[in-house]
Each structure stands twice: as C-alpha cells, then as structure tokens.
C-alpha cells in the first residue's frame, strides 16, 4: 500500500485543494504543499537503500488485482531507477509549487489540482510494472498537463496545448498497438497471457513482428523524450506553459520517455533494440546538434531553453542505445541532472518574466545590475547546462559519450560537437540576459518606477540554492545514484548480450 498511497495522496490532495479554494484562494497552495510533503513520508524509509551493499531487485513490490479477465494487474513496484525518478518528481513538484506560489493568482484551486494530478500520473508511470497500467498512467498524466498549459499558459497557449496533446497521444496510440502486439505475441510464444512486466521480461519475444513492436514502443517514447523528428511540440509547449508546468514538463515528463526506453524497450526487445540502435544513435547525434543549433537562433528565452532540452535529451537517447553500462548510467544521470538544471532555468525565466514582463532576449540584458543574486544563480545554471565538470550534467554527458564511443565512435564525435554548440547557446543565455547594458524592458521598468524590481525573495533563493546544491552533489559524488541503478542496468545489458 506504500506505493498506492504515494499515488493517492496527490490525487486526494488535489481534490481537497480544489475544494478549499471556496474558502480562500490562498488555501489551495497550502494544501498542495502539505500533500507534497506528505508524499515524502512513504518514500523516506527507502533512502536507506543508498547505504545497501546489494540492491534488491525491487525495493517495494505491490501486485494488486485489477482486470482478471485479461490478466491485467495493478502491479506497482519500485526499484532503484523508479526510486530516483520518484524522488526527482517529488522534489521538482516542490520546485514547481514554489515557482507557482505567487505567479498563479487565478483559479488557484483548479491549478493545484492539475499540478498534483500530473505529479501523481508521472509517479504512476515510474511505478507501474504492468504494461496496461503503465499505459494508463502514460496517457492520463497528459490530461492535467494539457489543462495546465491551456488554462494558465501565455499568449499562444491553446495552440501549444493542442500540439502537446496531439503529439503525445499519437505516440500513445502507437504504443497501444505495440502493447497489444507484445502481449499477443508473447501469448503465442509462451501461452502465458500477461501484461506484467516481470513476466514479459523473462521471455523476450522474437521475430519480425517483435521488431515492429519494438519500433512502436520506441517511437512512443522518443516522442515524449523528445527526439528528432518528433520534437516540435516541445518548444511550443514549454514556451507557452506557466512556469510550474514548464518545470514539471522539463524535469519529469520528458524523463518518462527515457525511463520507458531503459525500462521497457531495452530489456523487452533486446534483439530489436540492437537492430534499431544505429538508427537511434543517428537520431540522437543529429538531435543533439540540431537542438543546439535551433537553440542558438531563438529569440524567446523559454524557447531557447526548450530547444536546449531537445539537445540534452539527445544524450539520453544516445546513452540508451549505446548499450553499455557507462552510457546507460550516463543516460540515467542525464535524466536527473537535466531535470534539475533545466527546470531551474525555467524557474529563472519565470522569475524574469514575472519581474520584467518579457522573455524576449533582445529586450533583456544587464540583469546583473538590477538583480545580482538572480543573475548569479542564472549564471550557475547556464554554466551547468553547458556541461561544466563538477556538476551533474557533466558526469552524465561524459559517461554517455564514453559509453557510446566504444561501439559508435563517429556518432559520439557528432554528439560531442554538441558540447561546443551547447556552450554557444548557454553563453547566449548568460550574455544576452545577465550581462551587457540594460535591455529595453529592463530599462523601462526602472524608468517607470511603478513597481520596484526586487531581487530573489527568500523562498525563490532557497528553492534555487537547494537545486544548486543537489546539482553540485551529483557532480562530485554521483556514486550513490549510480549504485542505485547499477545492478538493474547490468541486467538490462546482460539481456542485450545474450
């Protein structure tokens, strides 16, 4: 019931938050805060797993009956990988909450309902070990996310929300077909009807059809990742989403794609994964460069960061299909580190937009004079996103590249050029926003003197500094995170080698 409660707390909390708006529009955020903090309770005992010598296969395993007719179970389980991602989700949930705290003034109740439900959905994705259940969470988490973008987004929010939903749903439908195919093929080959991951993973399916099924799953996952050529929903969604939604989107929603690849595609279809690996490596390599180049020419700060996400997530894809332990570890690290660094950047953009009412790079500039604390933190995260050693992103990118270099040196070289291009767009962020003379928007707000632009409040600074600390910790001591998933990833690789 531990994992179930992990899902139920935000679900119920969301409803309570919505209801509480009737009494006071300030209540929902406190309810949301309380339920998010409460969510930590069930997972706290498992922090002891960091000290375990040998990671068990599952930290928690909760099979539950659901639809016996099709042998569908509500199987929730948590291993090291799920644990890390759940922790990330909860932590970034708090960050999102913090960024929404004053930014969201309208319809607060419904906002926090959607925020909490998205988090519940994402955690469900990370915890579901039944493929049907996984699919359900996979799809359902999109609905509250869609509402977050469509209701509280910026100028062009409806278009962005549509695009987001259509892309991910199209991928989802493909996954639905593949899921059905997988189960049926597995039934034909073993005469066991099951949607359960632990059952399916024992006898990987074979044959031509298996290849296409693997492709279906992969496409669904890389749409979410997002990788080329399915990335184009992301810039729009990110740009238009309110800060909190951007944070959730960047920090955890994209990670479900990478998670899916590592959890499902690689172990369930080892042969097919090997077969499509060159294609995926190409997509990843090109994606890294393409995303970075696109980021370079953006005028909208959020859009720039969104494209940088495309570039960064290319490393995840690269790591997944390089199929060796370094690269996989790197992919996991990249998911965590990117989750933190990019969402921090989104939080910063949110703060900038809140203060200067613009995200246009041409109108920003010279923020260091106005808001030095904010700028210093911005500098830090800008530098993090270009992969500075000593921060989590570097460990991740290094491991991915080291790993993929073994079998795919040329793809690695292409992807490594992303390090240069990454520096270009990261420097642009820093250069155009924080340095230089004051930009137009920065100036006008001063001239008017209407509202004094203040530097980061204590709440904002604390949020960001905690993220700084985590990122640095991941950069200098990533070992606990890696130990968490090591045995798991080794098994995955062993499957591929058979």
């Amino acid at each position: 019931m531990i994992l179930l409660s992990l899902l139920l707390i935000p679900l119920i909390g969301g409803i309570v938050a919505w209801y509480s708006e009737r009494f006071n529009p300030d209540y929902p955020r406190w309810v949301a805060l309380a339920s998010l903090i409460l969510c930590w309770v069930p997972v706290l005992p498992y922090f002891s797993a960091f000290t375990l010598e040998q990671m068990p296969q599952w930290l928690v395993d909760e099979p539950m009956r659901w639809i016996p007719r099709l042998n569908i179970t509500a199987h929730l389980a948590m291993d090291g990988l799920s644990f890390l991602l759940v922790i990330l989700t909860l932590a970034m949930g708090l960050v999102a909450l913090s960024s929404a705290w004053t930014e969201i003034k309208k319809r607060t109740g419904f906002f926090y309902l959607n925020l909490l439900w998205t988090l519940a959905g994402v955690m469900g994705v990370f915890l579901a070990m039944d493929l049907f259940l996984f699919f359900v969470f996979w799809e359902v988490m999109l609905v509250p996310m869609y509402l977050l973008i469509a209701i509280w987004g910026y100028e062009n929010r409806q278009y962005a929300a549509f695009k987001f939903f259509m892309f991910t749903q199209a991928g989802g439908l493909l996954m639905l077909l593949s899921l059905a195919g997988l189960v049926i093929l597995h039934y034909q080959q073993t005469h066991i009807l099951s949607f359960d991951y632990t059952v399916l993973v024992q006898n990987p399916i074979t044959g031509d059809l298996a290849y296409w099924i693997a492709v279906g799953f992969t496409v669904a996952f890389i749409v979410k990742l997002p990788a080329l050529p399915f990335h184009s929903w992301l810039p729009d969604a990110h740009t238009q989403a309110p800060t909190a939604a951007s944070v959730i989107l960047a920090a955890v929603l994209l990670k479900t794609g990478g998670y899916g690849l590592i959890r499902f595609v690689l172990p369930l279809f080892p042969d097919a994964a090997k077969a499509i690996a060159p294609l995926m490596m190409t997509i990843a390599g090109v994606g890294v460069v393409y995303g970075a180049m696109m980021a370079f020419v953006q005028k909208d700060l959020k859009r720039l960061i969104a494209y940088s996400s495309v570039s960064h997530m290319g490393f995840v894809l690269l790591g997944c299909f390089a199929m060796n332990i370094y690269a996989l570890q790197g992919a996991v690290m990249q998911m965590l580190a990117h989750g933190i660094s990019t969402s921090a950047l989104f939080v910063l953009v949110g703060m900038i937009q809140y203060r200067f009412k613009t995200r246009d790079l041409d109108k920003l500039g010279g923020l260091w004079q106005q808001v030095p604390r904010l700028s210093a933190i911005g500098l830090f995260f800008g530098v993090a996103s270009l992969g500075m050693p000593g921060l989590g992103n570097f460990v991740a990118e290094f491991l991915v590249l080291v790993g993929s270099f073994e079998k795919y040196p040329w793809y690695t070289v292409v992807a490594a050029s992303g390090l240069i291009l990454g520096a270009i767009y990261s420097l642009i962020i820093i250069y155009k926003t924080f340095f230089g003379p004051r930009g137009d928007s920065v100036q006008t707000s001063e001239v008017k003197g209407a509202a004094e632009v203040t530097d980061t409040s204590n709440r904002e600074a604390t949020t960001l500094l905690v993220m700084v600390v985590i990122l640095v910790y991941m950069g200098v001591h990533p070992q606990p995170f890696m130990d968490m998933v090591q045995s798991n990833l080794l098994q995955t690789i062993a499957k591929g080698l058979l």
Partner: protein
Amino acid sequence: MLTNFLSYGVDMQIPDSLLMLIPLLPFVSSLILIFVNPPKKIVTLLGVGSVGCAALIALLFNISLWGQTDYVIKAGFGNWMTIDKLVINFDFYLDALSLVMISIITGVGFFIHLYSTGFMDEDTDYRRYFAYLNMFVSAMLVLVLADNMLLLYLGWEGVGLCSYLLIGFWYKNRDNNMAANKAFLMTRIGDTGMAIGLFLLFYQLGTLNIQDMQTQAVAVWAPGSDLQGNSMATLCCLLLLAGAVGKSAQLPLQNWLPDAMAGPTPVSALIHAATMVTAGVYLIARNTQLFQLSPDAMFVVALVGTCTLLLAATAAMVQNDVKRILAYSTISQIGYMFLALGVGAGSVAVFHLMTHAFFKALLFLSAGALIYSVHHEHNIFKMGGLLKKLPVVAASFAVGCAALASLPFTSGFFSKESILEKIVDSGHTELWWAAVIGAFITAFYSGRLFFVVFLGKMQQEPNHTPTKTMHIALLVLIVPSIFAWMQPQGLIALMPGLPSKGLSDLQHWLPIFTPIAALMLAFGLYRANFFGSELKSPALQSIHQLLKSGWGFDFIYHHLFVLPFKWLCHINRNDIIDLFYRRLEDTARLMHGFVTGFQNGRLRSYSASLVLFCVLAISWVVLK
C-alpha cells in the same frame, strides 16, 4: 657549491594530506566570498590570504623535497565515480612537474592577488573579483595536481570558466562579453577534441589515471609495435594536442588571447600569461611518455610551436596596445615551449614556462601599473618619457623586457638558450633557425615597447601613482625574473632529454648576440622616429595591417565558420521539421474542406450517394 649545499635540503617531513589544502584553501575562500558579503578588509584578507597560505604550503613542500629528484606524493578526497573499469578518484599527485607548477601558480598568484588589492581597490565588484580569482587559482591547482585525466579535465574546464568570467568581468561592456565568449568557445573547441581523446584513450588503455596511462601506453604501443598501434597513439596525442592548443592559444586556436586582454590587467597577468595558458604545455609534459610513442605527433607539436611563435612574434611587432603586445608575446613564448616539447625536451619547456611565468607576470603587472597611472590609456604611442615619473614601473618593465628578449644573465636567457640547445640536439636545424629568428623579433618588439613607452618626450602626465602593494608585487617579481637561472632538478629526472650533441660555435654565439643586435636595431629605429609614423608604401601598409590583425585569422574564421554556421541556423530558424507538421495541419484542413464539400444538403446528391456505393462496389466485383 651552491647546488651542493642546497641538495642536502632541509630535513623536514610534512604530512602528505597537506597537499589537499593547496587547492582547497582558495576554493573555500571563493565560496565564502560568493555566499557571504563581508567587509572589504575581510574580503582582502580571505582573497589574498588563502592564496598566500597555499603558497606557503607549496613552499613547505619545496623545502622538504629540495634536492630530491624521485619523489611522488599522493593525497586524495576519495572516490568520484566508479563504474566497471572506469574508476575516477579525487586524487592529487605531486611530482617534480606538478611541484613546479603549483609553486608558480601559488607564488606568482599570491603576488598578483596582492597587487590586485591595489589595482581593483576602487572597483565596486571587489568581492566578486576575488571570488573569481580564488576560484581560478583553485581550479588551476586541481588541473596540475590531478592524478587522472578526468580530474584534470575538471580543472581544465574550471580555469576556462573562470577565465571567461574574468575576461568579461566588466560585464556592462558588450565588447568585453564578446571577448569572453570568444575565449570560452575557442578553448571549448579544443577541449572537445581533448574529451574525445579521453574517450579513445580510455578504450585503448583501459584507464584514465595519468600514470597508469603512461605505463599502459608503453606496454600497448611499445616502439616497434605494429603500424596501427602507432597511428592510434598518434591519434590520441593529436586529440590531446587539440585541447592543448586551445588552452595555450596556439595555432590554429590562438586568436582568442589578444581579445582576452579585455579583462582587468592582473587577470591577464595571472591567467593569460603566467598560468592558464601554459596548461597546454603542462598537459603535454604530463603525458610525455605517451607523446614519445608517436614521433609524428611530436613533430606536429614542434611545428605548431614554431609556426605560432613566428606568427605571434611578427604580430607583436606592430601592435599599439601595450596589452596586446604582451598577449602576442605570450602566444609566441608558449610557442617556444611547444617547440621544446616537440623536440622531446619537456623539462626545458617547463623551465621556460617557469621563467616566462615570472617575467611575463612582471611585465603584465607593470603594464597594469602603467595603465593605472596614465588614465587607463592602452596605446603606447600616447605614452612616452615615463622613465622618471614611474621609476619602479620602468625598472620592472626593463627587467621584464630584458628577460623576454633573453638578454644574457636574465632568467629568460637561460631557459631560451636551453630550448635552442635542445633543438640542436634533436637535429631539426630548420626549426632552430626559425626559433632564432623568433628570438630576434622578440627582442626587437621588446625593445620597441620599452623605448616607446619610457623614453622620449612625455605625452601625458601620470595621474595616479601605483599603490604600495603594487610596488611590492613588482619588486618581488623582479627577483625571480632575473635570477631563476636553474632548471628544477626533479624535472630533468622526470623528463630526461636527448643526449647532448654539443653545439657548433655559430649555434653557441648566435643566440647570445641576436637579442642584443635586435635591441640595437630597435633603438636605432626608435631614434629615427620610425615607430608610430605613417607608413608610406601601400604594400607595407597592408602588411602592417595584416600583421596587426594577427595574420587575419579572425577574418578567416569569421567567414569560414561563424558566418556559415549562423546562416545555417538562421535559415532553419522556423524549424524545418516543425514546418512539416504545419503542412500536415494544412493538409488536414484541406481534407476537411474537401469532404465537407459533399455535405451540400441536397436530397438528390444524398440519395445518389447510396446508389454510388452500390455502383462502385459492384464495379469492383466485376473488375475483379
């Protein structure tokens, strides 16, 4: 006699773990300065004191290891990451090479910090300055102490970042930002090559630990092994070289350094002359055994060094900006070090690195004092006759220029002489000639610089006098600039050079007289009022222009790489792939229009549709 006495050393044991304090002290101080806002005095105390303490510890190590040649001290913070074969520790490794390096970094660094307290006294961002500077020192120390390549890379990127921040320290000016960006990106290009080199080395040798790498490399690519192994060694070395040329501003990534002079002058002294830019030299010296497995790569290193030293020296001849002159001279001097490395004389290269660090820091600091004194004027032709007004600056400038020109009995003379000697030993006569020509040009522009600035008529009355701390730093640095005559003992043991062949008379005397001749020529031309005057001939003018722009590399790169890249990005600004999806939308809209067209509300067409179905279906049957 002297060496004999010193070789006994001082019998003193200091704990190895003290080594860890060296990079840690400035790092912690930097963190404190970032997060806390103490009063200015405390800032000074922390900023300067931390580096001072590190310097003291380095001094202790020097004393305790004096005279010993074969020593290794290790200390570590523990594990960074361990996956399978990839084991990376936060381990520091101190041998003769890194000892020299940390001594330079902390020693020179300390005096530059001290000097900065005067130079930056009036700056509002005093605290930020020391935070960056301490961070830089710390990163640089990690770089040279690192036991494995990844930790080295950490320091490597760290110094790059600090250099970026310090070049753009006065961030309100867009030009400074651009210079910082340029420096970061150009070095990043090299770094990426180096990173790829690390991947390759890891798979070839199975480790990233520097010492293990050397032994493994010797085992795997032993001389006389198959061609493939040799070419792999060459590839690895060239990739490492890419990183080295980036950081050390060598061809073809040299043109960021002159622009990097946008930073405060003490920064230029510390980072862009004495320490960071020599990281490339250090990297190759560190991997001597690896490089020696590949003669081809060695020759490339020598070639890069030679070309760079000539190119930069010629460029230095025509600059107006005092800092740019020094920047080009730095590039040129590092070219000498690369040349030395390329001919297998690592110890001599590091010797030159050391002397260069002293006299170049001295030069930059005195240039800083000069600029500080004369209304922040950079153009040498707007100075002149400052000998009397700024005696200490003039003296230190003179010493610096003398060492740079390698006049006999200065430190620069000994190190450069050794380099030339080693080139002869390696048998590359053509490189020797190039190096001598370079020496001539070096002495020439040193003379030009000194004469124009300090002799003649006074153009501008100095409005400041350098502060006391600045003077102290200058005076202290004069000493090693003159008297650093000896190669550190340990280096020779660590990197034994080629057997000496002996020099011919020409080879012996020419280098000694070259600088003197060059100085005389410079003086003559100065007297003839040649410098700074208009050039009459258009051909000369265009050559002058070409040299002044550093052989036009900026222009070439701008058109060859920057513009095409920008163009490519800009034509795809709307994301071609997204356009595809937009077309898809349009198609759907069109389809909607098309199918809606049939909904015309007419009963006759509706009933016709029923018939149509039957007709179509039956004709299908018939056709089948």
